[in-house]
């Protein structure tokens, strides 16, 4: 997020798209609702499903899944037509505006409403709402990024925000709501094939030298590594022989489950380190028992780049050990004894090697966390990014043509399947499907179909249906409500009994390599 969560209270208009905030980020939804009820902010929700946030929305647009670039360009087209853009901000702080302006000519309201299914005057009202408001904040999540055009969607949203001068200002910003407690931290720490910690590129000689020297003169390759989807296909093709998995469950979270299963089984060696015997762990040659978040010390970074402490409250069960200890032991046995053994010592190493985390020490975040970038020991952190000027100097406008999703509804597979999360469960259900509490609220997978479609196919509430795609089929209970629009079905991916990744295809976004979970063509039949 470019702005802190509390900035939501300062926004005049809040645009949320691709995020069911009330269910996936309930606390951020509290802020949105407080902004609307107490501060009189206007809420503009753009989501194919009628999510509960719509109850508080001033205006709700319902685009067809996968047509995000179209309506974003449509909004920008209207804002330019009515001169609502922040021209001074554009001239001083951005570049590439003219090319964008020319490109937007074709995205007239009628043309956009044809591709997206949003009525033209709603588009105009939305554009005026967002265009006039200073500041306006954009919140988005996986609904925008889980497409083959994910990166394009994000770039278009960035252009929209810059058009109205909403970046680098209080109450504004373009704010991705990260899904997990430390997904931001994992990226910051270099858990990516193309960057070291602090996003220092792997290809940069200076960075390699710095890390190599710090780690005792080891040889670090400059070639960008494999992403998770490439690893799985690499395993299937035999290019990858061994995978070491820590706290992950690709069997359920990766697209095209058969493909994943085949890949993992052909591996020479698979080591998994987790807190439960997950589906992936069952495929492993070695399984290590690890400690969960309540049994370890360390830090995590939340979605607003705030680094906060995690403290140990319990001892791990049985012989389970903390991940740090396990990694240290393996590396010692492979002839590379690691010096740092406690979380605090590792953080000191991170301070030296990662400029944006340099000032974040355990003493400073004992009471309250710090927002990175925090370059030195007495720097207060930077809650709002891009203030004054952009980190890369000038803001870049992008000319993004509209590309339809890979699979669209056709005669044989008339429905569009979208997958996602629900309030009561988390990711692959490893944690939330244990114990009686959360299970009682949401015991099994439910496919959400609109009442109209159900009536047409003679499906009653609670019947079981088969959802079939070109890659596989699952049997799942139905939940008739008016959340899903006609011709759409939503199935959560927490349940291995109805593993929705049997249905999704493995085509990914060219840049971010994120699979298109939000749009898959399926067929629905009444199950026996």
């Amino acid at each position, binding site marked *: 997020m470019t702005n802190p969560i509390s900035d939501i209270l300062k926004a005049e208009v809040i645009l949320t798209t691709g995020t069911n905030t009330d269910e996936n980020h309930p*606390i951020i939804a509290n802020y949105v609702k407080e902004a609307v009820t107490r501060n009189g902010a206007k809420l503009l929700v753009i989501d194919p499903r009628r999510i509960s946030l719509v109850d508080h929305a001033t205006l709700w647009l319902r685009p067809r899944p996968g047509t995000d670039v179209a309506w974003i360009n449509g909004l920008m087209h209207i804002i330019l037509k009515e001169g609502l853009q922040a021209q001074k901000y554009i001239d001083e702080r951005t570049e590439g505006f003219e090319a964008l302006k020319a490109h937007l000519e074709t995205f007239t309201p009628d043309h956009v409403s044809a591709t997206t299914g949003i009525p033209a005057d709603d588009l105009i009202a939305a554009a005026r709402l967002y265009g006039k408001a200073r500041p306006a904040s954009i919140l988005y999540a996986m609904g925008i990024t889980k497409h083959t055009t994910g990166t394009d969607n994000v770039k278009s949203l960035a252009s929209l925000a810059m058009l109205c001068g909403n970046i680098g200002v209080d109450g504004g910003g373009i704010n991705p709501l990260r899904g*997990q407690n430390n997904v931001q931290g994992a990226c910051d720490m270099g*858990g990516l094939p193309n960057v070291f910690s602090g996003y220092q590129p792997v290809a940069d000689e200076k960075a390699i030298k710095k890390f190599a020297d710090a780690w005792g003169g080891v040889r670090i390759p400059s070639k960008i590594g494999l992403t*998770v989807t490439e690893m799985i296909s690499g395993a299937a093709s035999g290019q990858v022989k*061994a995978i070491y998995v820590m706290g992950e469950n690709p069997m359920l979270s990766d697209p095209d489950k058969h493909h994943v299963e085949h890949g993992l089984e052909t591996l020479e060696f698979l080591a998994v380190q987790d807190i439960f015997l997950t589906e992936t*762990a069952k495929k492993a040659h070695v399984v290590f028992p690890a400690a969960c978040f309540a049994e370890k010390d360390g830090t995590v970074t939340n979605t607003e780049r705030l680094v906060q402490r995690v403290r140990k409250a319990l001892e791990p069960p049985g012989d389970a050990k903390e991940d740090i200890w396990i990694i240290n032991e393996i590396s010692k046995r492979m002839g590379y004894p690691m010096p740092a053994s406690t979380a605090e010592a590792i953080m000191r190493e991170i301070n030296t090697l990662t400029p944006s985390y340099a000032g974040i020490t355990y003493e400073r975040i004992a009471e309250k966390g710090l927002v990175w970038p925090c370059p030195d020991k007495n720097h207060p952190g930077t809650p709002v990014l891009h203030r004054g000027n952009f980190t890369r100097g000038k803001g870049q406008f992008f000319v993004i043509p509209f590309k339809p999703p890979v699979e669209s509804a056709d005669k044989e597979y008339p429905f569009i399947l979208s997958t996602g999360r629900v309030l009561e469960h988390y990711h692959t259900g490893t*944690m939330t499907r244990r114990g009686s509490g959360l299970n009682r609220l949401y015991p099994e997978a439910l496919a959400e179909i609109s009442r109209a479609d159900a009536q047409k196919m003679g499906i009653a509430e609670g019947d079981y249906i088969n959802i079939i795609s070109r890659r596989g089929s699952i049997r799942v209970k139905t939940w008739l409500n008016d959340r899903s629009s006609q011709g759409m079905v939503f199935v959560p991916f927490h349940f291995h009994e109805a593993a929705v990744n049997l249905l999704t295809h493995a085509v990914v976004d060219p840049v971010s390599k994120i699979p298109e979970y939000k749009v898959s063509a399926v067929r629905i039949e009444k199950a026996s």
Partner: protein
Amino acid sequence: MSMVSLTIDGKMVSVPEGKTILEAAQQTGIDIPTLCFHKRLPPIGSCNMCIVEIKGRPGPVTSCNTPVEEGLDVATQSDALHAQRVINLKKILLHHALDCPVCDRAGECDLQNIVYKFGITDVAFEPRAQKRDDAYATSLIRYWPERCILCRRCVTACQSIKGIGAIDIIGEGDEARLVPVAADKCKSCGECLSVCPTGALTENLSRRKGRPWMGKRVKTTCGYCGCGCQLELSALENRVIGVHTETDDGVNQGSLCVKGRFGYEFIGDENRLKTPLIKENGQFREASWEEALDYTAKRLSAIKDQFGPDSIAGLTSARCTNEENFLFQKFMRAVIGTNSVDHCARL
């Protein structure tokens, strides 16, 4: 913001306009007894414990929702006020169940503290607490009507913080009790549970596993979504017996969601992995750490020598801490010698 000055118990106080008398008193350290007042909630004014006398006004006024005015002369303590407060408490105690030894909230119950502070020795009326078992808006929280003091904190919290309003108090006199008016809209966030002053709302999960103050309280960050809510785990004999929040702490300011407040059962689950496992002809067998670690190191080194470092890949996790992620990518890059490190940020 214009300042308003008034005297409370003879002390001159000046506070910004719009503040209530209670806030002015608290600011100068004068202690007015309260029961239904809660820092995070707008004033409710249902318990009448915070009554004060204002010179020139006929009867006592509840100070929690009366705004300050210029030149007020407020008295917070007097025999009449004390007698009235004792009567208020006794009316509440009239219906209260004799549950203290078995009540989850005992020891942290606002009603207990205020009754003890006032030294109430006997409730003159014949107590008529009826045992009733009423349904509540979610299966994760249990409602004990005979412990409820009808202070409306839960109703206000559900309306003002969560904007849902799933519960309300219906009925008059003895019949009045909390009823889920819109149970389907309830998100089981536990906001009502966290502000309830007594044991009327308790967790259905950890009933009577231990008193909260017995456990060791550790402040940590929630392990689920990206909001990074601050919460306190209370652990007793290596078991988590409860989750608590401080009202002015972290981005969540005391609120949590259903996963944060109730999703801690997996920590003590019996089929947590406890010993390293090694697969032999399709079956897992338990192994010692020594054996498992040696086996892994040997296999990884062998594959690295035979097929080169790029034949090995690593999957770290967005649910591990920064330090673990850093160490993992250091292991893959320095020890294995490959950049094939990724995690599920893409999924």
